[in-house]
């Protein structure tokens, strides 16, 4: 395990973090990680007071995952990732197989702990929800794929699931309450997931989301690969977040190995990240309009999206910008004439996009559907760690590009976009502002693009680091541990994983026909959640 030399600034941050933990004595033990994050190993006696102190000081639990053979003291280590403004603190807790749950203090821990249980067999005592998460009923008992002892080989699933073994959904009782099961196979061209509505008439009384139908074993697949080989795995996490996840992985590798990539590669990566944000936002804006039956508006955006995806293909040869980002920079340069085509396109794009926006925002019947629909109250943002446009439309501040600038976001700073209504209209509007911002940033980046190489070939060193990027959907976390040049653990936590839990709250009291538009306005990736 390697550690960076401690800088004077680190000591100051360590003191601030120790303050958050409620005891100044921690300051000397907090160590700086490779990418600006801080680590502190805590004993079981220190753990509970530390957690309570972090909760009282309004820290957000943004990740919790298990790593095997990380600490010499125990078989498993649980890593709790906390965020407070621009500081990230990771608590390392030894764990032999059981641990106390913190889900009652930090509700976002609920899914995280269930994920650790399925993956590593860790039992959390005092947890209010102990159901399986990503391993559905067909997986055999006592099967925990992420432990080192379990080889990544095909397993024999159960062919049939007895009714008593089926997933126990929360049941809601009362006069006139009935359940509507939806999915996993939906009516449209959408990914699979199950929604269990409890409704009274048309009004949604309760919703329980069951995901992980698409669990493909991404994290296990990464183990034993080199970070370079893993880029293709990162791109397969979620199709329209290919660049974000590839960049997150590469940043982690580069930080661990002390690789600084050429400036031109930094600029081009940022252009790709912003292009991805644009086409992703356009897709869900079009989708939101389709879901309220407004094809005139929807087509304005879907045409622009197709144009953008064709632009992607011109620039990189892939409509999803795949195969370009790599450790040490980019696999290939983007030709000068293609960048000129992009610049011309972006200038026209802004004008065309505004035409579409005007059509949408001047249609009162549509505004009527969007306003006050699917509200996410601001109070939910911190407990559930809701980020991205969904968080910013509810008064949230988190934008990783601003709070933890990576790449060149410290020089090309995005404008923070915030609204407070938290409804579908607010999310639509925040996305619209971000699309226009991205277009402006791309123009700026092309104009200021430095010459030079786009790749540096340097060896990978061993170590671990956390990297956080802002994808179109929000905060994406990637924790990478490289040992003997191979990946020991690749932990991914996408924005969708946390944001999915927001929808259960956003739909309460809404009518069932508004569910599709609320779902689309949150733009949740099923593949990115299920991994």
């Amino acid at each position, binding site marked *: 395990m390697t550690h960076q030399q401690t800088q004077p600034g680190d000591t100051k941050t360590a003191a601030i973090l120790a303050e958050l933990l409620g005891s100044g004595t921690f300051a000397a033990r907090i160590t700086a990680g490779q990418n600006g994050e801080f680590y502190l190993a805590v004993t079981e006696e220190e753990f509970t007071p530390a957690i309570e102190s972090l909760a009282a000081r309004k820290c957000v639990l943004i990740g919790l995952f298990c790593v095997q053979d990380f600490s010499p003291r125990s078989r498993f280590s649980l890593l709790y990732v906390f965020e407070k403004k621009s500081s990230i603190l990771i608590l390392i807790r030894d764990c032999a197989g059981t641990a106390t749950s913190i889900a009652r203090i930090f509700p976002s821990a609920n899914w995280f702990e269930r994920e650790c249980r399925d993956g590593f067999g860790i039992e959390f005592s005092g947890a209010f929800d102990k159901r399986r998460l990503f391993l559905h009923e067909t997986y055999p008992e006592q099967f925990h794929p992420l432990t080192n002892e379990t080889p990544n080989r095909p397993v024999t699933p159960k062919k049939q699931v007895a009714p008593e073994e089926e997933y126990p959904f929360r049941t809601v009782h009362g006069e006139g309450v009935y359940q509507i099961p939806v999915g*996993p196979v939906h009516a449209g061209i*959408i990914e*699979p997931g199950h929604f269990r509505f409890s409704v009274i008439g048309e009004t949604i009384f309760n919703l329980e989301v069951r995901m992980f139908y698409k669990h493909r074993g991404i994290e296990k697949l990464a183990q034993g690969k080199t970070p370079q080989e893993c880029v293709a795995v990162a791109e397969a996490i979620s199709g329209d977040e290919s660049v974000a996840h590839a960049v997150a992985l590469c940043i982690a590798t580069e930080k661990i190995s002390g690789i600084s990539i050429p400036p031109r590669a930094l600029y081009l990566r940022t252009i790709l990240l912003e292009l991805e944000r644009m086409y992703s936002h356009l897709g869900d804006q079009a989708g939101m309009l389709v879901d309220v039956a407004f094809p005139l508006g929807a*087509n304005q955006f879907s045409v622009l*999206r197709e144009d953008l995806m064709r632009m992607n293909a011109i620039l990189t040869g892939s409509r*999803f910008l*795949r195969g370009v980002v790599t450790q040490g920079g980019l696999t290939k340069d983007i030709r000068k004439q293609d960048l000129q085509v992009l610049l011309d396109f972006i200038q026209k794009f802004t004008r065309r996009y505004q035409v579409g926006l005007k059509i949408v925002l001047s249609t009162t019947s549509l505004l009527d559907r969007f306003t006050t629909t699917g509200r996410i109250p601001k109070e939910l943002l911190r407990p559930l760690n809701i980020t991205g446009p969904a968080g910013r439309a509810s008064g949230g501040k988190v934008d990783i590009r601003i709070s933890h600038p990576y790449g060149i976001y410290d020089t090309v700073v995005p404008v923070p976009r915030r609204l407070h209504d938290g409804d579908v209209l607010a999310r639509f509007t925040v996305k619209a502002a971000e699309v226009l911002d991205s277009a402006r940033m791309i123009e700026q980046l092309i104009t200021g693009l430095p010459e030079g190489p786009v790749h540096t070939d340097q060896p990978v060193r061993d170590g671990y680091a956390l990297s956080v990027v802002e994808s179109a959907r929000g905060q994406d976390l990637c924790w990478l541990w490289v040992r003997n040049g191979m990946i020991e653990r690749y932990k991914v936590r996408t924005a969708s994983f946390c944001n999915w839990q927001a929808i259960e709250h956003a739909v309460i009291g809404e009518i069932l026909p508004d569910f599709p538009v609320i779902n689309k306005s949150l733009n949740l*990736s099923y593949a990115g959640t299920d991994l």
Partner: protein
Amino acid sequence: MVNALSCFLKKKVTEDLMVPDEDVERTGRELKQQIDAVFGRSLAIRELDTGSDNATEIEVNNLSNPYYDAERFGITFVASPRHADVLLVTGAVTHNMAIAAKKTYDAMPSPKYVVAVGDDACDGGIFKGTYAVLGGVDKVFPVDLKIPGNPPTPAAILTGLLALMNKAGKKA
């Protein structure tokens, strides 16, 4: 609000239809002829995602955008497998989706065709041989056509459907 009067006085905002892809148009026309001949004017497709990374879904969805507008070639995406002639499957089949996938296939009336779209659906792709997936779609039910790609472009999907129609026409 848009003023109704100004709508009459102003120039029409409708843009001229560009023909941006000669290839897509040609494939589409051929496809329409084949669908007319083999399936009596309309081909009903049910899309089923058994574990893709959502890029393939995006491309299948793009078939309905104004550039491709696949409906004019006689293709309709239907909401239920009971209405479908073709099952378009994307992604390697995960254990968690296996039962639902089989139920979807069984719900389709015969004659039915299955098309695997994308590398993962064709043979499991990068997930082949891992704990979480059974493999390609052909591990669960018979597949009539495979369209490779990561993901295949909308044009490639149209070309694949044309190949399927040619095959179905010969069989009939």
